[in-house]
């Protein structure tokens, strides 16, 4: 079975990869990626069913916090059935989107303000080395350089230092990180495609 799954993965991977470089292989790449989108959709639904099963079990066993699980199951079932009957773009479903999902996401993002500030203070306390100081100093310069104060921009920092740091210094580091990530992804992808990573085949 393991050999068979490895052969499937390698064959599909090579066919999809060929589509990037050979125009003749584009059609087969499109068909395979269409199938992959369908399978990803079904896999996501299976994941959601698993979430439902886990929380239903918690409610059935009466575990601590099962009232929250019951709430989750109830809201999930109502939202899914309403969405399946009415379609996601229906006005009633937009109430769920604009009344619950988006405000909660934005408020959670807003809470990050406190968490990030706390993390920055902890970083300065625990790791006051060169990298930590450069990190905090850059963040402070860029942040205060980009805010609009009652008297306008902070001279020099807002007009000269901030653009140079963000568009030259930070760009150099970002490019190095991105190229490093791409090289790492290439190496891992090739290992998977050539069957050199047995952990992937489960």
């Amino acid at each position, binding site marked *: 079975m393991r050999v068979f799954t490895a052969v499937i993965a390698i064959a599909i991977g090579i066919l999809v990869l060929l589509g990037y470089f050979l125009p003749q292989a584009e059609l087969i790449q499109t068909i395979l990626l269409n199938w992959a989108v369908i399978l990803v959709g079904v896999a996501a*639904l299976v994941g959601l069913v698993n979430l439902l099963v886990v929380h239903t079990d918690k409610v059935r066993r009466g575990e601590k916090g099962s009232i929250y699980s019951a709430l989750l199951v109830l809201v999930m079932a109502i939202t899914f059935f309403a969405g399946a009957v009415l379609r996601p773009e229906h006005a009633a479903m937009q109430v*769920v989107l604009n009344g619950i999902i988006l405000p909660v996401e934005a408020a959670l993002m807003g809470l990050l303000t406190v968490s990030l500030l706390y993390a920055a203070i902890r970083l300065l306390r625990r790791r006051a080395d060169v990298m930590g100081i450069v990190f905090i100093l850059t963040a402070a310069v*860029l942040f205060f350089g980009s805010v609009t104060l009652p008297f306008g921009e902070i001279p020099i920092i807002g007009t000269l230092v901030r653009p140079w740091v963000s568009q030259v210094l930070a760009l150099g580091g970002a490019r190095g990180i991105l*190229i490093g*990530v791409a090289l790492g992804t290439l190496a891992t*992808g090739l290992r998977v495609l050539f069957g050199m990573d047995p952990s992937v085949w489960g």
Partner: protein
Amino acid sequence: MAVNLDLISGVLSFLFTILILSYLIGDNPLFRIAVYVFVGAASGYVASVIFWQVLKPRLFDTLISAVLRGSLVEQVLIFLPLIGAALVILKIFPGMTGFARLSMAFLVGAGAAVTLGGALLGTLLPQVQATINIFDPQAAAARNIGAMEVLGNGMVILVGTVTSLAYFHFGAQPKTDGSVRRFGLIEIIAWIGRIFIGITLGAVFAGVYAAALTALIERFSSLVNFIVLLRTTLGF
């Protein structure tokens, strides 16, 4: 009807913002209620989007059309993902998860190829090309930037790129005293790279913090606006 839905949306938005921001005084049942409702609503919404925007058009509609008036090739082409989807669904049943491996192998292969193509064509080549283009005098002249400025900034970016990459070089040899250290020159280059990475992460942190602060201000603003609207509507 539309006005009522807007009002419901506004009330829910107000309520859930308050519940989430209550976390500022510590973890509490109100915050948990909001988070669990959010997870339930988001997962139900996502499930309905997957059904209507992925499975229906790509699987069910194509299947019906292929069965009714498609050729044999079209019918085979649509039945294969249907079988794959059925195998993925078997993952729900504990004794039959082995069958799902076939579909998972398909996804791993396709995913690895897409990731490889994306990393090569979407990141590696464009980033290398962009680093080369910094030194292009014609492009700089078109943007009214002097040659010396281009050269200076280009050199800093190039040094930042190379030294940041060198920071991730972890090849090392054991010394006679048993310690393991990188080659001296790499160590110096990596130290400079560390500074560049610190600057980059600081810039990312500032960006994320600014976005989080904007979101917080927007939420407070929406709370105030809702109260003002409610006062105006109810006339008190």
